[in-house]
């Protein structure tokens, strides 16, 4: 953990060297995220509600997923860019150091400019939390926190899978985007509105609905089942197969020799 904090500090320092570029990139990140917020706004403005969910309730889902995504993208970026680490041989260097491999990959790249999305998520939360009509009791605050945190875990798991596959293909495979970027877009709305097929995929394959839709039902008093609290925690188990795949990949790693 101390090592990770050190990595954090190094990256923060190095990125602050180019302050204007940093601010510009953070701002454009904000604009990019803003376009998906705008499309949610335009659609909800036209149709007023979707499957009985109001605009403010949709925003609550939107912000929780966006926040989870931006946090994990900021810190797990090293896994997202892992194909370059493999193809230019840096991974050999990581292997010979007497420290945890995952920690080193995590620390290899931390992009604070990705927090442009996070700023947006916070702003949307500031609007949606009072406006969505939920009576905020301690248990609901706890649940919302759990939703975001386990969302970070699920997205990080996806980034790890993405990196682990690079061991076998060297090139990054675009299709994992279906679940990372796709998960973020699908998560902009309560996942149930996409119908059964997509709901099943995002429950049993990638447990995104466990961190978004089901706890959300509790928040908005559509269900009072206390078991819904366990779901975000169960979703965290998703990390186990991801790490196993990663370990399998590391064991089968053959240097590209460059």
């Amino acid at each position: 953990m101390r090592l990770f904090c050190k990595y954090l500090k190094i990256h923060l320092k190095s990125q602050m060297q180019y302050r204007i570029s940093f601010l510009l990139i953070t701002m454009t990140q904000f604009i990019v995220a803003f376009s998906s917020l705008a499309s949610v706004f335009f659609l909800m403005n036209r149709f007023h509600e979707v499957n009985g969910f109001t605009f403010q309730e949709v925003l609550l889902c939107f912000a929780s997923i966006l926040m989870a995504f931006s946090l994990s993208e900021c810190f797990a970026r090293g896994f997202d860019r892992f194909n370059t680490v493999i193809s230019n041989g840096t991974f050999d260097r990581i292997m010979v150091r007497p420290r945890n491999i995952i920690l080193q990959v995590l620390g290899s790249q931390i992009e604070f400019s990705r927090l442009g999305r996070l700023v947006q998520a916070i702003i949307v939360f500031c609007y949606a939390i009072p406006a969505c009509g939920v009576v905020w009791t301690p248990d609901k605050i706890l649940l919302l926190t759990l939703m975001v945190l386990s969302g970070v875990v699920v997205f990080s798991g996806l980034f790890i899978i993405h990196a682990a596959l690079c061991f076998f293909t060297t090139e990054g495979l675009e299709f994992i985007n279906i679940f990372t970027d796709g998960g973020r877009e699908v998560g902009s709305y309560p996942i149930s509105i996409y119908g059964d097929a997509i709901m099943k995929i995002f429950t049993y394959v990638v447990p995104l609905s466990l961190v978004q839709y089901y706890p959300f039902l509790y928040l908005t008093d559509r269900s009072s089942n206390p078991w819904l609290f366990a779901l975000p925690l169960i979703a965290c188990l998703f990390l186990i197969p991801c790490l196993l795949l990663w370990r399998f990949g590391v064991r089968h790693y053959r240097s590209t020799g460059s």
Partner: protein
Amino acid sequence: MNKLKKYGAILRIRFNAGIQYRAAALAGMATQFAWGFFSITLYQAFYRGNPQAFPMTFQALVSYMWLRQAFFSLFSTWNTEGQILNAITDGGIAYELARPIGIYPMWFMRHFSARISATLLRAIPLLIVTAFIPAPYGLSLPANPAAFVGFLVTLLLGALVTAAYMMLIYVITVFTMQPQGVRMAFNAFSELLSGSLIPIPFFPPALARILELTPFAAMSNVPYRVYSGDLAGAAAWQAVGLQVFWLIALVALGAILLRQALRRTVIQGG
């Protein structure tokens, strides 16, 4: 004639390079397919709740989405030619200037043909697969033969407008030597305003009317809606006129700016 041959050669080289990455193309297709599926189910939820508020037929929307996925590479405002950007920043531009061919048309051709090669590879399989998906989720046939011809013409025009818009990124990079920021900003604006996130008819009416006049609406918006007959008659002709206007305007702007930029360029040996 000789000149055409040169452009043809640029197109062929780029095309051959593009089709080398077949596995990447396959993975890309799967992604495009999934995105199309997500979007269509989302709009279906909205359509079920309130069909009156839907600004086009559901069928037209489904076709719009599949065309968007199929021709993604043709209209994406994210893909730039790394070669050109490198040439600008590392000084390779000196060689480019020495070639017996105008630099604007050469970059334009190189950029445009990269798009065409990426698209041909991905679009055709996707169009075939989606055409076989049962109604109302599949790509339907064009509204009528005239709509199909109109689609092809506006598709070409729209792709040219997009390429001319993207040329501005290279031109600005010649001034700033820093492509990242410009590139991100250009992409952020056009992605929302060109209707690739949500189709322009779904914008609030007042905003949509203004947008229709901008170069952003002259990109992919026109062909996708002409195809399904959503945009037809006088409105379609007006859209074609705007496409031609923006194509000329953007090319002129890019070419003039580039000439200005090159006049200031100093190649620093090496």
